[in-house]
């Protein structure tokens, strides 16, 4: 039984890659492979490249357009799994390792969360770029990040002279 659940969890790892979107606030972790809103559409890399070799036949499904990846996949095995939390195997994706934890309640998966996201800022940025861009939470002093443009309340021509954007423009990059 436990093996089945873990297999499901591993499969969901892939699904979460496809569908997950941190709709709840301040989740912060930015991972999703949904096509970009702007229609760039590329790079969605179907997620289930799992090294764990599950074959529950659920993955794919890239036709779905929305969804938060939470619990919508029914565990169709019929035999009821014990309530609890299970952690799936770690899937190697093109963006790095991803691990998913699922919660089983009443024999059905009630929640699925990625507990381990790819690290490395470059990679993170690339993932985000192909999905809906997610704002990170780090507060940085201007100039301490690799920022290329600043969005802020309308600069006046005078205010621009002191602005961050002015410095970035001058840096010529």
């Amino acid at each position, binding site marked *: 039984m436990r093996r089945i659940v873990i297999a499901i969890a591993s499969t969901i790892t892939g699904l979460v890659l496809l569908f997950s*979107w*941190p*709709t709840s*606030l*301040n989740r912060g972790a*930015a991972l999703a492979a*949904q*096509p*970009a*809103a*702007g229609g*760039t559409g590329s790079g969605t890399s179907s997620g289930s490249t799992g090294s764990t070799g599950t074959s529950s036949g659920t993955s794919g499904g890239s036709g779905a*357009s*929305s*969804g938060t990846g939470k619990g919508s996949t029914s565990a169709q095995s019929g035999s009821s799994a014990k309530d609890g939390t299970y952690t799936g195997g770690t899937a190697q994706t093109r963006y790095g390792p991803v691990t998913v934890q699922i919660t089983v309640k009443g024999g059905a998966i009630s929640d699925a969360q990625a507990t381990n996201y790819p690290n490395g800022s470059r990679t*993170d*940025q*690339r993932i*985000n*770029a*192909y999905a*809906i*861009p*997610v*704002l*990170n*939470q*780090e*507060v*940085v*002093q*201007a*100039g*301490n*990040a*690799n*920022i*290329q*443009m*600043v*969005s*802020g*309340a*309308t*600069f*006046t*021509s005078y*205010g*621009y002279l002191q*602005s*961050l*954007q*002015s*410095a*970035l*423009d*001058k*840096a*010529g*990059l």
Partner: protein
Amino acid sequence: MSTATQEHRGTDEPHDQAAPGRDRGVTPAPGLPHRAWVEQIMGMPISVHVRGPRARDEVVAAAVADLFDELRAVDARFSPYREDSELRHLQRGEVDLADASDEMREVERLCRTAWARTDGWFDAWHSRPDGLFDPTGLTKTWGVARAARHLDRLPGLGYAIGAGGDVLLTPPPDGEPWLIGIEDPRDRSRVLATVPVSEGAVATSGTAARGAHILDPRTGAPTTQLLAASVVGPSLLWADVFATAAIARGASAVDWVSTLHGTSGLLVLADGSVHRWANAV
């Protein structure tokens, strides 16, 4: 009008770890040539950055000049300050909308759409005390998105256009997203968040630069419940409209932004708390 032009040239050489820029925290992405221009148009700085193998070509510089020219034309038509602008003629009743230019009628249509899409919180007919129709909240980003087509014609070039705090982006050929900083409205030397965007827009409205200048269309009073609203989305014009509407709405924008599909962003409330969102399409 003053159009002091500054031009900043990027370097052609790939930057290594010891590049001077790194010490200042302004680290260019390695590889692609990069070039930036700035002009003051419509009373605000317009920054254009381009990245691509041909960033230094004259054809790119010519396209950027065309972009600036078009923005000056938009300003001449839509300026609420120039007495000879078409907008002023319209406001004084010297010309009917039906006889106005295609551009004016398009902007007026967009204002009506924006009114509907924001439940009336973006209101070009009640955005100023005298009650005159004033689409200024929309013409800036409308003009920038329109003028950007001069750069769209150039293959293998990504660009970032910053127009007084609103940013429009297309991906450079290496696919490396632009990294956009969201200014902290309480301390404009700080960045509150960063967001990588390959293609799309980031718009911010708020009170940091010009004080409380966005009016609640229902009361006519300046709104002060939000310090800033930043919206990331596929369209510059709509990101800007939504950011402005969020400021007008005030604190209730916290709930409203959850209805803006395919956007992310943040709101800074008057007490300094920050609300973030990211909505699936």
